[in-house]
């Protein structure tokens, strides 16, 4: 017994000494230097930052884009019974794939829940997160993300049972509210009730389905999420006419795609793909007229479609990148109307999402 203890003690001392001796050697190349990841993507510049800074090359090598989307939110990203995805967030990823590959089908959609979406992006499991994600300062700065812009201006609202007699948000004093964990929604509720001095109870479910089932079973007086989501939620209810969406919007929810920090070129591609969709809307370039618009005299249209300047090359793409986007996916207006517009089941007006010169705030910096 005593012997064994001695052996252990000596072992410890020796072991520590060995580690100490080897430490300076191990430290010299630095932990970043001998990362296998650096070797993996060494086809570009052989610098340690290569991995973080080479998403475009990785996507090209892989032959497809991996895009994190919602598990099922009609109008934003929703699979049908044949596994075909549709929605604004999904179409944005298709636009990105079109710009890179001239092929909107070269996207793999990775459905993510609210809680895990940022980890999936940070860990490199996805190239881009396009999952009705609100751009906030803490997400932008603390999570190592970069938001590409705003693809949909949203705000948080409430849905209630009609028979509860609740007419507007002020009637919710004392109410129990159901929501999903891992969202900005969960936090806005607290802000709203606190600032109005109302009492409330909040129940946060991991999955949206349980939150809705609990609301459906009257466990809560109201369910809350982004207003766009509410329209979709109402459709999911057994009898949509039994539910009322309250008029108040209690928060700003600018939704947009996000990429990892540290790859400025990839962030630019993500950002300008979004701006291209919006600029095409503003200039009247649609999937139907894009071929004839190539011959347009307008310098703005010519720059957009690659007739003048080398804008595609500036972000590592070909100069007809916008033609590819518009041909396959359409402009912002087409994407909006196809997925959530007044002719769809959701029936959402452009509202804030109308162009800046048409009464909304959708505005993209110019391509020049």
């Amino acid at each position, binding site marked *: 017994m005593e*012997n064994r203890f001695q052996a252990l003690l000596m072992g410890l001392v020796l*072991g*520590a000494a060995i580690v100490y001796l080897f430490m300076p050697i191990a430290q010299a190349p630095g932990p970043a230097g001998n990362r296998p990841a650096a070797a993996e993507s060494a086809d570009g510049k052989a610098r340690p930052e290569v991995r973080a800074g080479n998403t475009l090359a990785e996507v090209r090598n892989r032959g497809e884009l991996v895009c994190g989307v919602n598990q099922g939110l009609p109008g934003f990203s929703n699979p049908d019974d044949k596994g075909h995805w549709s929605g604004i967030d999904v179409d944005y990823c298709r636009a990105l794939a079109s710009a890179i590959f001239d092929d909107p089908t070269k996207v793999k959609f990775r459905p993510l829940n609210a*809680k895990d979406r940022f980890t999936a992006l940070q860990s490199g499991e996805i190239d881009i997160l396009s999952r009705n994600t609100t751009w906030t300062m803490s997400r932008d700065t603390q999570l190592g993300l970069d938001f590409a812009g705003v693809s949909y201006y949203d705000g948080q609202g409430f849905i209630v049972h009609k028979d509860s007699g609740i007419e507007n948000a002020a009637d919710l004093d*004392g109410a129990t509210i159901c929501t999903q*964990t891992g969202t900005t929604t969960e936090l806005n509720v607290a802000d709203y009730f606190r600032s109005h001095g109302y009492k409330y109870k909040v*129940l*946060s479910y991991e999955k949206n389905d*349980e939150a809705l089932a609990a609301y459906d*079973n009257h466990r809560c007086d109201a369910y809350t999420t982004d207003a766009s989501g509410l329209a979709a939620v109402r459709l999911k209810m057994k009898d949509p006419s039994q539910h009322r969406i309250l008029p108040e919007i209690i928060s700003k929810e600018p939704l947009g795609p996000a990429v990892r920090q540290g790859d400025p070129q990839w962030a630019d591609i993500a950002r300008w793909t979004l701006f291209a969709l919006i600029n095409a809307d503003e200039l009247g370039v649609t999937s139907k007229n894009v071929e004839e618009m190539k011959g347009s005299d307008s310098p703005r249209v010519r720059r957009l479609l690659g007739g003048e300047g080398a804008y595609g090359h500036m972000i590592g793409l070909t100069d007809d990148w916008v033609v590819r986007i518009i041909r396959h996916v359409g402009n912002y207006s087409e994407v909006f109307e196809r997925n959530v517009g007044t002719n769809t089941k959701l029936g959402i007006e452009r509202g804030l999402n109308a162009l800046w010169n048409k009464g909304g705030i959708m505005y993209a910096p110019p391509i020049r």
Partner: protein
Amino acid sequence: MAGAPTKGKQKIGLKWSNPAVQSVVYQAALIAVVLYGGWVIVTTTQANLARLNIATGFGFMDNTAGFGIVQSLIPYTEESSYGRAFLVGLINTLMVAGIGIVLATILGFFVGVARLSSNWLVSRLAWTYVEVMRNIPLLLQLFFCYFTVLRPLPPPADSLSPLEGVYLNNRGVVVPSPVFGESSTLFVIAVLLSLVAGYAIIRWARKRQAATGEIFPAWRTAIAIVLGVPALIWLVGGAPFTLDLPVYRGFGFDGGMRLIPEFIALLLGLTLYTAAFIAEIVRAGILSVSHGQTEAAYALGLPQGRTLRLVVIPQALRVIVPPLTSQLLNLTKNSSLAVAIAYPDLVAVFAGTVLNQTGQAIEVIALTMAVYLTISLVTSFLMNLYNARVAIQER
């Protein structure tokens, strides 16, 4: 230490063929590898987090949480810190796991004994229970419990009220809560004293029985004291507390104490599920005691109940306690499924909402794992103490 190496040298010498030398070298090598591995993991993680611009450290624990929690046993508001939210979650976990452990153990013992009953119906019922519960995933049982608890209950406005001041609705159970005033100090002291007295009587009676064989109805006396003395003081000195009655207002009840349906469903699910496993362990434990023991007890004239209580179970416990411990640990760990039904346990509050807000996954998950590890080690430690007591004493 000074004398040790010389002693070692005299006896063995520093040759490689010497097993002691070999073991030192092997251990040194192993420890070096482990330490180096740990060091590489930590520094690489740090470097990668810095490279990805992800915030690190535990500084966030002092920041304002800003979100509400539906059940809290300690004062908590949106202005409280993340550290406080962590505590709230931890206490909620301990509460559901603690009560669950007690209930599952009791239920498991009953079902396990019932499974061996000579009454056909009782043993079949127990068998059915065990098979059904063991073979359905816990998460499904939780959803089932949750929605079967919720669905039939009326909204707050039409609450069921089985007793004055007690209300049952789909927001949970509300009961009047006691508010302790000044007269309660005496009462609390009386309760504590009578508990001590009850315990002393039971110990005394046991000792006396061991020494002289005389039987004293200790349990009955003890219960009479524990209930009687406080009741007497209550009668003489008046009620030691006043009741805070819940009142209906707007969306529900104000005042009183409440159990939320999420808690009830989680407790029910964990208890019923774990009890099935415990029942099997108890059954195995009882079957492990040789039948000769029972026959010997009958031959001595002990009735069936006492045979079980005094002869069989004490011997069965030796077999029961170790696997029982791991079931109790399972129950605690399984309580982390709470977030599925919105019970605000540690995982839901801390590894859920706090993680979502701060994004500091590594710190939050590491701390959460450390908590579960600590709870498990403490539970194991206590069960090992108990195991040492019930284990056969070699004489």
